[in-house]
Structure formats: structure tokens, C-alpha cells
């Protein structure tokens, strides 16, 4: 019906105000939309609301015509009066044929121009009428009845704003006033969307949860005066890769029933998806990491630390050197140690020798061989596995040596607390292999008067090339000789591992570790005069506090690398804190900054 809004209007006139028709239509359009909103509130149905509005309004075309004529009435009357005068004038001039013909010709052209003008104007008005009708009758445009009420929709996508729809994710929307409370709890549809219907403008709290219980939450503000508001949330498309960890026990210890490893697993509590923070594990978290401790016994049973605060507190004391009790662990063991990667880390506290036949939560203290290396290890997996993968956590050889020593001592002393099976097992192990020797470690020292200035420096050893035009170095000395050097200054490096891609970059500082017997071959500095440089000495001391524990160490004492091996810790512009270590058995390149192993080859 509104298509005919201008049908009854005469052709536009030259003396018509240019926006007269447009403004009439605009004003009526506004009125109709106001009436529609009101009727929608009453009827609750768009079709019925539209019907009522049009029934009450009557014929808009007639009203448009009336308003137009009212506006143009004075001008039309003036024109008619003018036309009468013109008629008189034309009659008076009828004798002037040539002139009259000329006038008639011009009048024809003017009439055609007016008709063209009229057609164009009518077309424009018709378009406005169509737009008006569409705004009233389109079902999809469910315009809210009140500016305070907004049609709210939630759109979920996977991994990016233009990613595939995230279907089946749980959406919780809560908020509103006490009298108008909203508490919505529904899943997104196949298109990743949820139509929340009309909600009152204001602040709401939205929570989105994946099918694997990862969730995000935030406040959203629904602003008044908008017909529709869409909240877009970018969700993780898949759960973090999961894998199972197990302890790689040596065969001689594996058969002992009363041994266990105490370790902590640290996992990031959140992850970032396109700027949205998602909690990767259920519940609210106030720390960046979730840390859980476990006792993993040789029989495969896994005993999580008890959740109560007392146990947590006692375990905290244990970490500072206190004793360990089995009652601080849960009584029901797990069969698998599940981790979600790729950022899970573990910290080996040490090996527990439990009383015979005791299991958590027996009220028994345990003997404990502490791990000296208090560094978090990365339990990383490569790629994106389809299912759970296994990661084997190996115990440091130095720790195993001390565990064996402790067991042997128990056997020798016949300690009443030592289980018969344990003693027997140790006896078997002792028969099978020679008593292991604990590697000797040496206190280290740096001397500010022994600084060397290398200009230039070039080291080539085992696939590693390290060079600099000018760099200062201070030897790391111990009783066995010079076992390394700290380099302060800029340089470059390139390492080409066997069967691997080249790893190269620039360093700002470095620490070298080698066997004292190899010092002259790797880094000859005997002919370079020693100078005193307290700055290099101080910086090197600071650097060693972090870097020294990366390789060949027992705490802050030096273990002597095997001959021919070279380990370098580089503070690289490209890689951060980077370890390149190569020996006769093992080669590893590991970025401590990225917690990522870039290359690994060998037994460990």
C-alpha cells in the first residue's frame, strides 16, 4: 500500500520547495515507526503490530496528498490567477502570429522539461515509500519496542573473528535489575549464534564455556537506542593437546616397590585466544599457573597431593627442606598423569623411599633423596596429536646415583625401617652392576684480574662456530682447571647439528663450559695478557647465577664435562636464553626463554 504513497500527488512543480515531499514522507515515516513500536509492545507480534498501525493510520497516500496540497495551496491559487491574466494577455496578443508561434514552441519545451522533472521526483518519492513499507513489514527486522530494549545476539567463532562457527558452546548471560533479572543458560547453535531476544539496556555478565570446560567471562554493555546488538566472542577451536606423563625409571629401581618420585606439575591456568583470556581448567584462578604435586611410585600408582590447606602448608614446608609424610597425599591413587600441553612443566623434588608397604595417607614420614636441580623442565610434545601422547620424564643421573647410595646404606645398616623386599632388590641391583660413583663437583671462582680481551674471537668446535670482533672473557676456574669462560660483548654464532637445520644468531653474552683438558683447543687465551676488569667480573657473577645451572653443574659447583664436549649458554638476540650442548653421546639445543627444545639427539 505504501508503494502508492505518492500516487495521488500531482507532478512536481517548479515553484515547489525542493524538500517538501521528502519531509512530508519523513515525518509520516517517523510517526508510523513510533506507532509500530508501541503496537509491537502491546501485540507482541510483528505482523499484528503492522496491521494495527496501518489500520489506524488510514491511507497514508491521501494524507500525503492533503499535506502537499495544504502546503502548495497558496502557490497553486496564485498560479491560477496568473494563468487567467496570461489568458487575457494571450487574447490581446492573438494578432501577433509570429510572436505567438514562437511563444507556443517555447511552452512545449518547458512542458517537456517539467514532465521529466516530475518523473524523476516521483521515482525518488516512490523509493522512499518502499523503504518505509519495508521497515514496517519486514519480519526479520524485529525492531525493539522501546529504545531501552535491545535485540541481543551472541556470535561465537573458532580461533578468529572470521573463523568457523563455534557450535554447542555453553553461553551464560546474567544481569539486569532486581525486577528485571536475566539469567540465560543456553548453547550456541550450528551457526555459532544465540538469539537472546529483547533485553533491557545495561550491563551483563557473559560466560562462554567450551565442550571441554574451558571458559571465558567478561562484562558486556548493551547500549540503549540500538535496534540490535551483537556480542562476538572468539573461542578456542580445540582443546589444548593432552598427553600422559610417566616416570622413566631405571630397570634396577623399577622393581623396588617402595620407591616413588615426588614431582610438581605446573600448567598455565589461562590461555589467550584473540585477546580473550580463557581459563583452561575449571574454576576461577588468581595465579598464572596451577601447580599440583604428586607422588608417583614405581608400581605406576600416582598419588595427588591432598587439597586441604594443612597438607598444602606441610608440603610447602617440605619443599623448604622439611620432612615428607604420606598423609599429605590423597588416599585414592590415579593410574595416569594427564597433562594438557603444550606448556606443561614439571619439577622433580626428589625420590621418596617409603616405609614398607605404606601408601598414602598412612601417617608415616618417608626417607627422601632431594633433587639438587630445582629447575622446571618442559614436558613438551611435538605437533598436534590426535590423541593422548606419552611423555617420559627421566630422573637426572646425579639423583639416581644418590638414591642408589642411600639404598645401599640402608642395606648395609639393616635399618629396621627398610623393607625386606627393598633390601633384596638393592642386593640384586648391586649384583647386577657395579656400585655407581657419584660424579665429583668442584667449587668455582671468577677472578677480576684474569679478564681477557679477545679482538677478534673465533671458536669452532663440534658444529658450533662462535665469533666476535671484540669481546671480553673471564675464565671459570675450579680445582680441576679452567672449565669454562663467561663472555661479555657482542658476537655471532652458528650451530649446524647433525641432520638438523642451522641455528644461528647474535649474542650479547655467553657462558662456555668444557673439560679443562680441552681448554687450549677450544679457547686458547694463554698468550693474551690478563687485565683487571671489575665490570666484566660483576656482570659475569650475575650471569652465572642463572646460566651456570643450565649445564654440567651440581648446584653452583661445577661437574667436569667429558672430554671433547662443549656447552654454550648464549644470551641471543633472536633466541633469548639458549643452550647449545654437544658431547659424545648427546646433543641438545634448548631455549629456556621459549621453553622449547630446538634440537635433541642422544640417550637422554
Amino acid at each position, binding site marked *: 500500500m505504501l508503494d502508492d504513497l505518492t500516487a495521488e500527488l500531482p507532478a512536481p512543480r517548479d515553484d515547489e520547495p525542493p524538500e517538501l515531499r521528502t*519531509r512530508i514522507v519523513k515525518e509520516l515515516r*517517523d510517526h508510523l*515507526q*513510533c*506507532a509500530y513500536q*508501541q503496537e509491537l509492545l502491546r501485540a507482541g507480534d510483528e505482523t499484528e503490530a503492522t496491521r494495527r498501525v496501518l489500520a489506524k493510520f488510514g491511507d497514508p497516500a*491521501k*494524507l500525503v496528498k492533503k499535506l502537499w496540497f495544504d502546503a502548495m495551496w497558496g502557490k497553486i491559487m496564485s498560479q491560477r490567477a496568473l494563468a487567467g491574466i496570461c489568458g487575457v494577455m494571450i487574447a490581446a496578443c492573438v494578432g501577433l502570429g509570429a510572436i505567438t508561434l514562437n511563444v507556443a514552441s517555447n511552452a512545449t519545451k518547458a512542458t517537456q522539461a517539467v514532465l521529466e522533472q516530475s518523473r524523476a521526483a516521483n521515482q525518488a518519492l516512490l523509493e522512499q515509500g518502499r523503504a518505509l513499507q519495508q521497515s514496517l513489514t519486514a519480519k526479520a527486522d524485529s525492531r525493539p519496542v522501546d529504545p531501552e530494549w535491545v535485540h541481543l545476539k551472541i556470535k561465537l567463532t573458532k580461533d578468529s573473528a572470521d573463523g568457523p562457527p563455534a557450535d554447542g558452546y555453553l553461553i551464560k548471560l546474567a544481569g539486569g535489575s532486581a525486577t528485571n533479572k536475566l539469567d540465560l543458560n543456553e548453547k550456541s547453535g550450528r551457526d555459532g549464534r544465540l538469539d537472546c531476544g529483547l533485553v533491557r539496556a545495561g550491563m551483563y555478565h557473559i560466560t562462554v564455556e567450551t565442550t571441554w570446560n574451558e571458559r571465558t567471562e567478561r562484562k558486556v554493555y548493551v547500549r540503549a*537506542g540500538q535496534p540490535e546488538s551483537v556480542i562476538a566472542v572468539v573461542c578456542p577451536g580445540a582443546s589444548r593437546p593432552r598427553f600422559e606423563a610417566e616416570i622413566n625409571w631405571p630397570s634396577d629401581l623399577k622393581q623396588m616397590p617402595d620407591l616413588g618420585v615426588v614431582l610438581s606439575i605446573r600448567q598455565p591456568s589461562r590461555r589467550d585466544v584473540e585477546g580473550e583470556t580463557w581459563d583452561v581448567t575449571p574454576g576461577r584462578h588468581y595465579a598464572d599457573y596451577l601447580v599440583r604435586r604428586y607422588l608417583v611410585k614405581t608400581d605406576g600408582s600416582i598419588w595427588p597431593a591432598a587439597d586441604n590447606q594443612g597438607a598444602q602448608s606441610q608440603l610447602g614446608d617440605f619443599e623448604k627442606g622439611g620432612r615428607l609424610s604420606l598423609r599429605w597425599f590423597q588416599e585414592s591413587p590415579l593410574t595416569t598423569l594427564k597433562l594438557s600441553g603444550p606448556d606443561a612443566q614439571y619439577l622433580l623434588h626428589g625420590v621418596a623411599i617409603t616405609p614398607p608397604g605404606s601408601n598414602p595417607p598412612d601417617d608415616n614420614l618417608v626417607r627422601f633423596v632431594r633433587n639438587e636441580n630445582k629447575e622446571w623442565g618442559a614436558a613438551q610434545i611435538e605437533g598436534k596429536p590426535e590423541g593422548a601422547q606419552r611423555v617420559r620424564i627421566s630422573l637426572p643421573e646425579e639423583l639416581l646415583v644418590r638414591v642408589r647410595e642411600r639404598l645401599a646404606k640402608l642395606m648395609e645398616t639393616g635399618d629396621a625401617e627398610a623393607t625386606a623386599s627393598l633390601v633384596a632388590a638393592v642386593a640384586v641391583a648391586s649384583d647386577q652392576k657395579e656400585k655407581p660413583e657419584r660424579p665429583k663437583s668442584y667449587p668455582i671462582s671468577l677472578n677480576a684480574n684474569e679478564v681477557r680481551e679477545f679482538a677478534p674471537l673465533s671458536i669452532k668446535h663440534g658444529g658450533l662456530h662462535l665469533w666476535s670482533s671484540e669481546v671480553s672473557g673471564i675464565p671459570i676456574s675450579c680445582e680441576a682447571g679452567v672449565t669454562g669462560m663467561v663472555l661479555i660483548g657482542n658476537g655471532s654464532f652458528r650451530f649446524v647439528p647433525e641432520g638438523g637445520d642451522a641455528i644461528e644468531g647474535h649474542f650479547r653474552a655467553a657462558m662456555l663450559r668444557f673439560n679443562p683438558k680441552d681448554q687450549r683447543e677450544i679457547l686458547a687465551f694463554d698468550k693474551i695478557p690478563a687485565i683487571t676488569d671489575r665490570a666484566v667480573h660483576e656482570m659475569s657473577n650475575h650471569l652465572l647465577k642463572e646460566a651456570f645451572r643450565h649445564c654440567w653443574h651440581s648446584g653452583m659447583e661445577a661437574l667436569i664435562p667429558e672430554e671433547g664436549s662443549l656447552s654454550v649458554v648464549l644470551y641471543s638476540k633472536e633466541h633469548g636464553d639458549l643452550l647449545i650442548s654437544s658431547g659424545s653421546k648427546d646433543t641438545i639445543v634448548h631455549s629456556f626463554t621459549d621453553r622449547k627444545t630446538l634440537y635433541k639427539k642422544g640417550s637422554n
Partner: protein
Amino acid sequence: MDSRLLSGTVDTLLLEVISEGPTYGYAIAQTVLGRSRGYFEITEGSLYPALHRLERQKLVDSFWKEAEGRERKYYKLTPAGRRALEAKKKEWRQFVTGVHGILGEAGA
């Protein structure tokens, strides 16, 4: 009600509503309807011709302003409109008094 009773008073009612501040067609109709408790329902066919007429008579002035995402025409009273309203109200009170005098009812 007999629409003829309303027709003579439409201008007065519109001027009175507009005198309270700038307003627009739909709001004017709703105000009249509400204050009269549904007694005076000014149809669009009466409302807009009356408003436009008052505008041509320069008793009201108009301006356009965006509201709810679209342009809306607002009306406001001119000084001449305010004087005309006072005159019409005075005239109406006299009319009511006269009618009451004849019908024998208490004054408004």
C-alpha cells in the same frame, strides 16, 4: 464523542502541548490521548494538517533532529503562538463558562 466538538479545539490542544517544550507529532498525539484519559484521540489525518497549518501561520516553528537512528521533526512554540494560545485559552474559558451557565453546571 462527536468529532465536531474536538475539531474546534484541536489547535488549542496542540499549542498547549507544544508550549511545554519541543515535541513531535506522535508524542503530541499520545500526550493528548493520555491527558484526556483516552477521550481525545487525534487521528493522523487531523494532527498533521493542523500542525502544518500552525506552522504556516507561524504559531509554531519546526526543526529536524536525529532520534532513534532517524530524523524526526520537532515543533516548538513561537512568541506569536504563545500569544495565540493565551487568547485561545481565554476564549475557551469564556465559552465553557457560557455553556455551563446555560446547562446549569458548576464551572470548570
